[in-house]
């Protein structure tokens, strides 16, 4: 099955926030009032019932100020830190088309995925004690519809499709931007998590932090160790202990005490 992806051309975003509302509407999320932060951003941060945020990153330029709009949501990594950290089988699944989805029937609400995520995306709901995030509308994509945010985008800033194709499109768009005088323009597809299924075209790819994106995201060492070598070591210790006990019993027999009859 083809890997699907979402391409976000941040240079075309006008900050209308239609994608935010499309996400809320499709997923039947109730809107909660936020706090006014002195910016045009809807909310200061993502929430358990708010999975898609347009960040209005302000950057001072020679002529004044410019906005670096960034759509902030789950990146659907090829090697998802949340999935690695998750101890509940089936709670986080990576579909064959690359979408990383949460299955809340299996979620135990431990919140390890929050630790494992290099992009700080999953959010724990205080009411249900389960973790929520963008599902790339796995219900819509399963029947051939594009995700809600992508369908509504009025400026064609968001596109959805086969990952290889979109990666080519992103590269050509970045090239076009460089030819237009944005020398630092490039594609954001961090390799620290095996590449992401959410691709960005950034005006300044040398400095993704200005867009509110981590420069070189990796799965936290604690999670990588715990779910990697330490897991096998722990399993080996457990199985070795049981086997050792068994063979000890076979070889030496049960423990005997002084005065005990054989």
């Amino acid at each position, binding site marked *: 099955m083809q890997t699907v992806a979402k391409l976000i051309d941040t240079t075309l975003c006008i900050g209308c926030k*239609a994608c935010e509302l499309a996400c809320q509407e499709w997923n039947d999320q109730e809107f909660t009032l936020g706090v006014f932060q002195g910016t045009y951003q809807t909310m200061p941060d993502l929430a358990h019932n708010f999975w898609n945020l347009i960040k209005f990153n302000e950057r001072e330029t020679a002529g004044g100020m410019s906005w670096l709009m960034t759509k902030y949501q789950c990146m659907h990594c090829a090697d998802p830190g949340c999935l690695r950290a998750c101890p509940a089988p089936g709670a986080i699944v990576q579909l064959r088309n690359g979408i990383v989805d949460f299955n809340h029937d299996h979620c135990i609400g431990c919140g390890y995925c929050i630790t494992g995520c290099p992009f700080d995306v999953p959010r724990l709901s205080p009411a249900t004690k389960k973790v929520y995030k963008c599902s790339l509308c796995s*219900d819509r994509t*399963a029947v051939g519809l594009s995700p*809600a945010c992508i369908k509504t*985008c009025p400026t064609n800033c968001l596109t959805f499709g086969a990952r290889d194709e979109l990666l080519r499109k992103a590269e050509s768009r970045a090239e076009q931007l460089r030819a237009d005088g944005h020398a630092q323009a490039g594609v954001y597809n961090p390799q620290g998590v095996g590449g992401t299924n959410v691709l960005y075209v950034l005006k300044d790819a040398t400095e993704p932090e200005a867009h509110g994106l981590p420069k070189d995201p990796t799965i936290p060492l604690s999670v990588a160790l715990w779910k990697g070598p330490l897991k096998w070591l722990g399993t080996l210790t457990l199985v070795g202990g049981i086997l050792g006990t068994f063979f000890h019993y076979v070889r030496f027999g049960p423990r005997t005490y002084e005065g005990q009859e054989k």
Partner: protein
Amino acid sequence: MARDVSRRGFVAKGAAAAATAFGFDLRPAQASVRELKISRTTQTHSVCPYCAVGCSVVIHTLGDKAHNVKPAVVHIEGDPESPVNRGTLCPKGISLKEFVTSDRRLTRVLYRAPGAADWKTISWDEAFARMARAIKNARDAGFEETDEQGRTVNRLRNVAMIGGCTDTNEINYLLSKFRFGLGILPYENQSRL
């Protein structure tokens, strides 16, 4: 019936069976997809009521139109067949479901008397009677048949009319008829304010 199973083969098969039973390879089976909420809906094509661009929308309604079933709007999204918006919608348009289903939607007449601080609910009859009385009084006081130079104008300048951006074509037609009938000149639309 005895089958030839070597000792080695039995151990290997047993280990594989145990691995499956202990949940080492259940991921494909658990990768269930969410249910599509518009898979059994009636699709109604309409036009977004907000601004003058006139984007087309598809209204997804749950309920099979049976006599005892009250239909419920579950989703509204852009109509891809419209040459105006080609499936896209702005934040106002994409939140149209709220416009239909919100529990904060005003369904009764609220009246705040002159000088009063609070709104109170009144009946439609009372509201119509009061509106008619106020318009009649104002028209009697301010109707101008001719201007300063004696030309016939039949105008009413002390009553203003504000149209709503969510009104349908039919309501707007009637509003215009009403306005021309009374001679009202000040006229504004909420989507421009």
